[in-house]
């Protein structure tokens, strides 16, 4: 590994561009980048629809929520019908068993040594239910698969993939969990994240915090102002979850100076930000500002007073948070940590934070600043690719297209980064320590991939295409000495230069 700080030649820059800022090379990627790696990355950001998915077949979150609701209703009706049937059959069987028992008792009286076996047999058919046919994945799962497929298609087919990597970064920053919002987890990313990855942070923040997936995931949909119409009537109240996580995770960052009062007051501000019930055929599952749940009155957040302007009150606080200097620092640090190093150079953080502040959160400008920063290129390539990045990079290196999305989903489950299912609202870790333990599982996956394609490819060609100048002599030697092509390919996917970026 090149751990020194020599200036990088053009070829090495192309390889770094692909691994650090993209999803790793496909065949021919290194050559097509040419001599200006930075320019190639930036050009990707200027493409029309960069970071977007244009698939009109994918459902909006509202459509998905309603489809899932209808599906569950049908399932429920089926279950009820089946239960009624079972109970009827059980009654019949009990009668038969009773009759057989009585018969056996009579027989036993007639000829002493007989047993009651017939009675037990008679009762059997009722116990053994015919195996139900597998109904296949339900609607929520089907929607989830479709969304997952669209996401990984984008990553696998990207030239370099910087815009997609930004999508993944922001999606993890503003994560929701499919465990709670399965049918809309994908739509959330498409609707709240993608349109803004190269837009303004404030717009993304608004879109995210008013998205039904987030409102449901962090419980704001049921948060009720204690003094609101609904609060007074139902005796229910505030849920601080979303308010706190917006401050701690989405904007300012932990320990950045806000108080419990700020959290409580902010939570009050966003009461009424809720979801139309999914059973409503028109707008079910969509965002709704419900004035009757909204805490009336002015609130103070971070020493600033906000009049009660209804829905607008929350938007005003979010805008202030988006423009807060602590938010700029927090986002800058996270971006630098994700793309460059666990402990990124302070100069890089400062540079990105300044750009964020100067442009009022223009994320395209901040992303450009990252690509143009010398620190982002000089840093040693020590960062372990996350399992999802490594999986996509491996498939790209092997020339594999997406066939069955379940395979990728299972892979990510195994590697500890289940798709759209982070362990907590903080998202998946962006530090090496979290992913080192999964190395044996990666080897398992590498072996499987290699068995799948390894006999058909030339490992040296793949090493040239996937690592180029990054390949160490030791790695090249290990590949050339492998006992078979599949083994060479597995070693390549597990080589430090391929695991790290």
């Amino acid at each position: 590994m090149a751990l020194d700080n020599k200036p990088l030649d053009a070829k090495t820059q192309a390889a770094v561009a692909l691994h650090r800022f993209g999803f790793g090379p496909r065949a021919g990627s290194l050559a097509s980048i040419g001599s200006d790696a930075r320019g190639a990355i930036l050009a990707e950001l200027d493409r029309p629809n960069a970071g977007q998915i244009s698939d009109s077949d994918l459902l909006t979150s509202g459509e998905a929520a309603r489809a899932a609701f209808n599906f569950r209703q049908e399932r429920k009706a089926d279950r009820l019908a089946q239960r009624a049937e079972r109970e009827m059959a059980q009654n019949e069987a009990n009668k038969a068993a009773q009759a057989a028992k009585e018969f056996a008792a009579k027989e036993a009286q007639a000829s002493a040594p007989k047993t009651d076996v017939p009675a037990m047999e008679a009762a059997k058919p009722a116990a053994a239910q015919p195996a139900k046919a597998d109904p296949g994945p339900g609607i929520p799962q089907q929607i989830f698969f479709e969304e997952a497929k669209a996401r990984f298609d984008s990553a696998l087919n990207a030239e370099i993939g910087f815009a997609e990597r930004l999508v993944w970064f922001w999606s993890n920053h503003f994560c929701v969990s499919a465990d709670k919002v399965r049918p809309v987890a994908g739509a959330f990313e498409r609707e709240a994240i993608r349109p803004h990855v190269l837009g303004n942070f404030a717009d993304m923040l608004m879109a995210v915090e008013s998205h039904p997936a987030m409102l449901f995931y962090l419980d704001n949909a049921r948060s009720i102002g204690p003094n609101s119409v609904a609060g007074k009537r139902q005796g229910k109240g505030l849920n601080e979850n979303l308010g706190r996580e917006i401050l701690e995770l989405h904007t300012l960052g932990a320990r950045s100076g806000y108080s419990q009062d700020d959290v409580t007051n902010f939570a009050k501000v966003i009461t009424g930000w809720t979801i139309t019930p999914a059973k409503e055929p028109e707008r079910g599952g969509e965002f709704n500002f419900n004035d009757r749940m909204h805490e009336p009155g002015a609130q103070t957040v971070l020493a600033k007073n906000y009049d009660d302007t209804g829905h607008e009150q929350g938007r005003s606080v979010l805008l202030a948070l988006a423009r807060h200097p602590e938010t700029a620092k927090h986002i800058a640090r996270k971006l630098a940590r994700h793309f460059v190093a666990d402990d990124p150079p302070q100069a890089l953080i400062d540079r990105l934070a300044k750009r964020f502040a100067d442009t009022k959160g223009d994320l395209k400008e901040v992303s450009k600043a990252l690509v143009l920063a010398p620190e982002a290129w000089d840093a040693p390539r020590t960062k372990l690719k996350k399992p999802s990045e490594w999986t996509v990079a491996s498939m790209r290196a092997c020339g594999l297209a997406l066939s069955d999305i379940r395979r990728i989903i299972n892979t990510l489950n195994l590697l500890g980064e289940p798709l759209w299912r982070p362990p907590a609202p903080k998202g998946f870790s962006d530090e090496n320590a979290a992913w080192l333990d999964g190395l044996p599982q990666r080897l398992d996956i590498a072996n499987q991939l290699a068995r799948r394609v390894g006999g058909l490819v030339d490992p040296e060609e793949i090493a040239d295409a996937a690592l180029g100048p990054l390949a160490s002599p030791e790695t090249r030697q290990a590949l050339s000495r492998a006992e078979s092509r599949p083994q060479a390919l597995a070693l390549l996917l597990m080589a430090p230069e391929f695991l790290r970026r």
Partner: protein
Amino acid sequence: MLHAPSRRELLLGSGSLFAWAYLPKLALAEGRDPRLLVIVLRGALDGLATVAPVGDPDWIRLRGDKALLLDGATPALPLDSFFALNPAMANLYRLYQAKQVAIVHAVATPYRERSHFDGQDVLESGLAKPGAVDTGWLNRALGTLEAADRAQAKPTNKPQNAFAVGPVTPLVVRGSAPVMSWTPPRLPPAADDTVMRLLDLYNHTDPQLARVIQERMGLAAIAKAGGMGQTPPGKAPGGGAAQVRAYFEEAAGAAAKFLARPDGPRIGALSFDGWDTHADEGAASGRLSSLLGALDGAIGAVESGMGDAWKETVVAVITEFGRTARINGTEGTDHGTATVALLAGGALKGGRVIADWPGVSEAALYEKRDLKATTDLRAVLKGLLKDHVRVSDKALASVVFPGSADIKPMTGLVG
């Protein structure tokens, strides 16, 4: 991609049976119903550690305390006055005594370099030189056979086109003749060998990753003991000797059951990995001993899986090349030249080691390091294809092994 069907789906290749979907008409017309199973050992088998020339005066000097001997700590099994079999291969020994095993020694393909990839290409393509090729000799042989009937048995001919890249059919059976495939449900254990290579790479380039691999996979023990059997259970990703053995046996046994069925395929191929024993070879007890034991178990499983059809069966075990005659600096062997081909089956005229023995003195070694090849593997394979499944001389010399007219089929192997 682990557990459940999804992981299994991926495991195509090693241990999978690939078989021709037909029955050979000509042989059937003679009242025979021959079976041929080709097992490719990838990584280069050490022929001298498999069948040792214990009668050669230079043998002990050559291998020193690593030489298998009739009176060693684990005594080799005497085959004749000159050769002895590795003690891990009890099934093969029993079959040898029943005249159902023939061993060809000092045999090699025409390839004389030492790259696994190219060597395997030559072994499987049937061509004299490595290079771009997309069909294998077994498939081309099938293409010349007239088919009597289509096999109905599972392996189903359900196409595997559900995969982005289809199953990796070994080159030896790739080609235009239709081939079915079947993969055992058990997972092949992740090769300890791959882990050791990775560890070696990390040790040289990335201490942090090396530490993780060592700690998480409990490999310190293996590295020290040098044998697969030393893997603490549940620590390594898979590869204990027992697991390897179970996997080989299951794959081979199931393959045999397919070939045995009246409506099943007749000609198939399997491959097993892991034979590249550069360090701590462990011929008598250790890694190679475990692998040979697993291979021996696989042959036993073919025998029992075949049932009555065993008497019409030939199993040919072949590898890309042999290993250095001497032990290297890490108690292993490096890439070499000649090795053994193991032939087993009730159809064989067995009970013999077939060798034009070159000797293992300094002067006799090829390039002063390898066992010299005195028999062309193509002659052996041509002999089997001709006499067992009735591929014509002409097809053998032009289509199956192009440009091999000078290499005469070995006669009298079966019958």
